[in-house]
């Protein structure tokens, strides 16, 4: 899994990373059940959002502050997400994965995947996150209705995106038009 290429790294480094990923994958499989192909892709998508979404300047803190990809509730990715962001940097900020049990735990975070386990509390969670510069991502059926920004939808065996641009804008986020091209734009009311 060497498709992520950190800036300025050589081929040797890439190979090393690749081997590490395989080892980790193998270890994860050994430790817990490996994530499905669907969640592998979703993990990559979570990473990719960092390239198509612009956060307000200064929202990440100083240069040493990490770029946080958070997972709220049960983690369906296992180690895969960690492997995906390992060693990556966004605008100089090292990328890290943080897992939260409750919404109150969510600290500095840029991308937050809200697991299906939180489906019942979605509205409360999202309302609580309101006003923070956090891109909320989820795959629950009522995610958009509840005020979530990006929802993963399965269509004909493919993962499709439904994005509520309004919600993202209210959170101070700018979503690239390219991403919008590849996604379906929705509003909370329509859902």
């Amino acid at each position: 899994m060497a498709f992520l290429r950190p800036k300025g790294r050589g081929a040797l480094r890439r190979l090393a990373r690749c081997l590490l990923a395989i080892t980790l994958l193998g270890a994860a499989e050994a430790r817990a059940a490996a994530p499905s192909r669907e969640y592998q892709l979703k993990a990559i998508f979570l990473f990719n959002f960092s390239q198509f979404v612009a956060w307000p300047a200064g929202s990440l803190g100083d240069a040493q502050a990490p770029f946080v990809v958070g997972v709220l509730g049960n983690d369906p990715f296992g180690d895969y997400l960690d492997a995906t962001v390992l060693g990556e940097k966004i605008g100089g900020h090292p990328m890290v994965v943080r897992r939260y049990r409750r919404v109150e735990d969510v600290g500095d975070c840029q991308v937050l995947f809200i697991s299906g386990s939180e489906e019942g509390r979605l509205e409360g969670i999202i309302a609580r996150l309101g006003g923070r510069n956090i891109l909320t991502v989820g795959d629950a059926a009522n995610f958009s209705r509840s005020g979530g920004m990006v929802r993963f939808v399965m269509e004909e065996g493919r993962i499709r995106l439904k994005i509520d641009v309004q919600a993202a804008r209210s959170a101070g986020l700018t979503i690239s038009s390219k991403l919008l091209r590849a996604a379906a734009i929705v509003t909370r009311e329509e859902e």
Partner: protein
Amino acid sequence: MSFEDFPIRRKLMTIMLGTSGVVLLLVCSVFLGYEFFTFRTSSVQQLSTLGEVIASNSTAALAFDNRDDASEVLAALAAERHIVAACLYDNQGRVFARYPSGSGDAVFPALPGADGYRFEKNHLAGFAPVVQVKGRRLGTLYLRSDMAALFDRLRLYAVISVLVIGGSSMVAYVLSRKLQKQISGPILALAETAKAVSERRDYSVRARTFGRDETGALTAAFNEMLAQIQEQNLALQRAYDELRQTQQAILQQERLRALGQIASGVAHDINNAISPASLYAEALLEREPNLSARARSYLTTIQRAIDDVAQTVSRLREFYRQRKPQITLTPVDLNQLVGQMADLTRAHWADMAQQSGISVEMRMELLPALPVVLGVESEIRDALANIIFNAADAMPDGGTITIRTRVAGPGGADGRSGAPAHATVEISDTGIGMDEETKRRCFEPFFTTKGEGGTGLGLAMVYGAMRRHDAAIEIDSAPGRGTTFRLCFPLPAEPVELAPPAASGPAAAKRLRVLVVDDDRVLLDSIAETLEYDGHQIVTANGGQRGIDEFLAGQRAGRPFAVVITDLGMPEVDGLRVAAAVKSVSPGTPVFLLTGWGQGMAEEGRAPENVDRMLTKPPKLRELREALASV
């Protein structure tokens, strides 16, 4: 035909059209080459820009695995008709989306190659990275463009080039047709003139000068050359004519002189030979009263014959005597001479004509009271006779001889102003005439058209006589149209009267002691005898030296001679030396020179040194007596 042989017009046209054509071709080639290379680079640039746009638009599709979106992005390439194939590879090198949508895998490279575009056989193709955030590659775009655009462009430029070259060549053709005349015109005109000159040998033509350039200078030089040639030709022709005239004149004189010298020798001998006959005949007639009438008549005839011989001989000798002072001119009535000659020659033309059954008529149109001219009657008479004979001979079928006299020049009948006044005798016949050659040569001695019958001397003598008279001869003649001879005698400045006939006085009865010197015994005797009859005492000396001896002997003996008569031409000691010897001893003794050559000298009125008087051979008794009486 090689280029050197082209006419100059064509050469100029070829040069101008060739130059402009080559220049245009060169320009077009450079332009086309430049276009070809710039278009290649610009094609790469365009394709890479297009690639960047497509790649940029494809990032999200690759990032979020949206093949439909990717296909849609690639479908936009339809607007760019030269793109024949395109595809997106994901970051694992698998074909993610393709254009045209239905293409098989074989259309695209199995794996993405190095980034950048390159020309393949008939295509421009290459790979471009698909990157959203710097350093993070999402996949690869492959684009392939055909070269039709380039070929279209080149074809367009080729067509434009052909049109430009064609159009320019036509303009150049029209222009050069007009402009080449500036150069070829003067050269052609010059060549035309040169050709005309060499073909017709006419050096009077001139080439037209167009301007003051090199061609103009050439033309001017050529014209100058022609002028010089013409001038030199003229000068040469003039010099040649002069030379020819001089040569002919000299030739004529030379012939006359040669003839004169022969005649002179002959005349001397004849005069010596007939002198005794003349003296004896005269003496007999004078001193023999008992002669029968027949004898007297015979003697008279003999005397006249001898006179004629003497005259003929003297005229023969006139050939080489060119100087005017040598003749003594006396007043002459031309009308009278013409009348005499018409009568004297009648036997020749009238009788002869009658015998051959033809008729020759003589008409006279004489101007009454024609002024008297100065001349030698015998010469003029001879000249007239010669011309009349020729006129008669020129009319084998009969005809008319017309003789006119008139006055011409200022105050004359024909009013020819400028020419000095002169009396003209004109003898015309209606005979066969003369051609140019004959007219030119008829005065040459020994030139004759009468074959054996002619001597060729008649007209030559006329010519000599006329020259001595300062008279001009004109001939009007053409074959078949008769001949007119015109003798123009200058009129004397002052009118002259005819001299009264000379009266010969009777001899004075003076008796003298006379020494006669001659190398001819017979002549010596005849003179001695006739003079002794008159009572003179005659001593003869046969030869010059003997004459001197006799004279000296006489002086010594106290019996000097009163007169010495000596022949001029003698072997060893001639008459002039005898005269010198006599005068050295006795300057008072008169010396008479007797000579067959002396006629000229006598008529000049100029006697040689030491000679008191000139006497001509054959001596006339009358003249001898007169001379002795004057002592």
